């Protein structure tokens, strides 16, 4: 393969989990729930997928279980936020600790060893490629859903003015709950890609801050599915570049820090005025 093609391929490989998590972030935030637990949802998806694949010997069962784990965590956040009006930031922080600690705990309990699981049945290269294609397809699908379906309109309305949604006779809480659950499933799929797509095991710290990079991609992509996907692709290209520049003297930490620095710059309005959904992170109280 030629070098540019190799670079593009590597960029896509690195971008895929970011795209899943960033789309999850877009969906949640457009519905008005600031989901900082993306990191935990990635970790949970990755770990549960490996555990289920080990138990059944079937990578597809692992995939389903990983998606389910993400959906459950997303649902817990959505349920807590809509039914109990909890603080989403605090709850998200708790969920991150719970998921990452839970995965570390689960490694010891299920596999009897800390640090990393043994190898399990993976999705293999075709599976990984299919997941990358799925990530890109999800970006377009979410774009269509958000901007061209009645449910998408309701989701966006929940993120801007949930009271207006309620006045229209709809239940903003149910809409938000569904959005966070679907979002969690997407992030879980990103986790599955990490453990069963790129590799065939789970190791501690596998999510490696991707959930936070995804939050950065959401801001950089101005809370739109295609924008966030573009940002995730750019961040994926950055990590691909890191491999190429490994011996050139450019510090790898700088390359790794670039997405986070870009997010800070976006917060400072450098890429034009980025506006969060008006009711992003605001509990809806009747």
């Amino acid at each position, binding site marked *: 393969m030629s070098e540019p093609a190799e670079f593009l391929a590597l960029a896509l490989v690195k971008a895929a989990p970011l795209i899943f998590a960033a789309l999850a972030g877009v969906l949640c935030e457009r519905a008005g729930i*600031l989901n*900082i637990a993306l990191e935990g949802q990635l970790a949970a998806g990755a770990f549960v997928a490996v555990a289920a694949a080990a138990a059944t010997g079937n990578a597809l069962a692992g995939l389903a279980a990983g998606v389910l784990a993400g959906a459950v965590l997303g649902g*817990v956040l959505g349920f*807590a936020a809509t039914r*109990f*009006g*909890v*603080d*989403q*930031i*605090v*709850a998200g*922080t*708790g*969920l*991150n*600790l*719970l*998921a*990452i*600690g*839970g995965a*570390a*705990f689960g*490694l*010891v*309990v299920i596999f009897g060893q*800390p640090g990393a699981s043994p190898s399990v049945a993976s999705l293999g290269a075709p599976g990984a490629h299919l997941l990358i294609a799925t990530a890109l397809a999800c970006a377009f699908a979410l774009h269509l859903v958000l901007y061209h379906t009645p449910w998408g309109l309701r989701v966006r309305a929940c993120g801007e003015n949930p009271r207006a949604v309620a006045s229209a006779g709809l239940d903003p809480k149910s809409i938000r709950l569904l959005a966070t659950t679907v979002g969690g499933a997407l992030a879980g799929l990103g986790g599955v890609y990490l453990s069963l797509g790129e590799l065939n095991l789970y190791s501690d710290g596998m999510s490696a*801050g991707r959930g*936070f990079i995804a*939050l*950065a991609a959401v*801001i950089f992509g101005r809370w739109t599915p295609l924008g966030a996907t573009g940002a995730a692709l750019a961040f994926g290209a950055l990590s691909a570049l890191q491999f190429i520049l490994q011996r050139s003297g450019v*510090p790898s*930490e*700088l390359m*790794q*820090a670039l997405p*986070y*620095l870009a*997010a*800070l710059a976006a*917060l*400072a*309005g450098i890429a034009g005025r980025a506006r*969060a959904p*008006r*009711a*992003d*992170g*605001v*509990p809806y109280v009747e």
Partner: protein
Amino acid sequence: MRTAAIGGVVLLALAASAMELAGANPLLGFYALLRGALGGPHQIAETLVQTTSLLFPSLAVALAFRAGFFNIGAEGQLVIGGLLAGLLGARLHLPGIAGLPLVLSAGALGGALWGGIAGALRARFGGNEVVATLMLNVIAALLANYLVVGPLHSPGAVGPETAELAPSLWLPTIAPGTRLTVAMPLGLLVAAGVALLLSHTVFGYELRASGANPQAARRAGIDQQWIALAAMLLSGGIAGLGGATIVTGVLHRFNVALSPGYGFIAIAVALVGELDPLRVVFAAFAFGILQSGSLTMQALAHVPKDVVTVIEGLIILALSARRFAPSAGRLRADERTG
């Protein structure tokens, strides 16, 4: 009170079932945890060391939350504080009386700077401090790794750490033969200082007023941009000072792994302490027990120590239903509609 008791029982039950799940005897698990944390003078000293390391970032979180800022970045502020303290300390050959205040101030300054970035973004651009502090946490870790391994590598250091500080720059111990140093009384002093600041000064009143009702505070003439910057500078400074006490008191050098997530556990500590600086001290002790007993629990009762992280996550999740100051998002939304 009753809710707290019910919550405590539920947590104990959850912890016990997690231990059962791990194939351990829960009673033995709890016993080992307590024995590891409080079983003797050395264990108690080590628990107090953990308490102290948790206390600084917890006070930082409590102060920021009281002012209405979700400082999720105590971890990064602590790391930067420790980094500056370690980089300076490893190169400094001064008697402790001159050097220690210098090294500790460097840590506080570093943390304040790191928190201040988020404060300035919020003050100047209305940028969400939650996202900013989350990003700054990761950047802090990367920066620390780059500097100590790369350009500021100190000769003689192996791994991602600085060289050892000269013994004159070690915080004096208050219990011979343990790692318990004057960092603990210093932390208690900071707790008292934060309590006094919040309840007995005009600035503290302005912080609390801004946290309780930002619009009313603004209409009352309290400069909200200044409050955002000041709260985050102060909060970051306390966390940074904490990082510097770990460097000078516990490790005697900066290591990139100096914090096992103190800045995140601090959120749980601050919430359990109801954001009240004096109650935060007791909460820090309770979490200090968890931190310091978890290794013994793993060794004696074969319960993976990560069960402690799970419990901490559950506590934060359970306490997220409490009413806090309005979040940044709500403030911005209100500003637009008002």
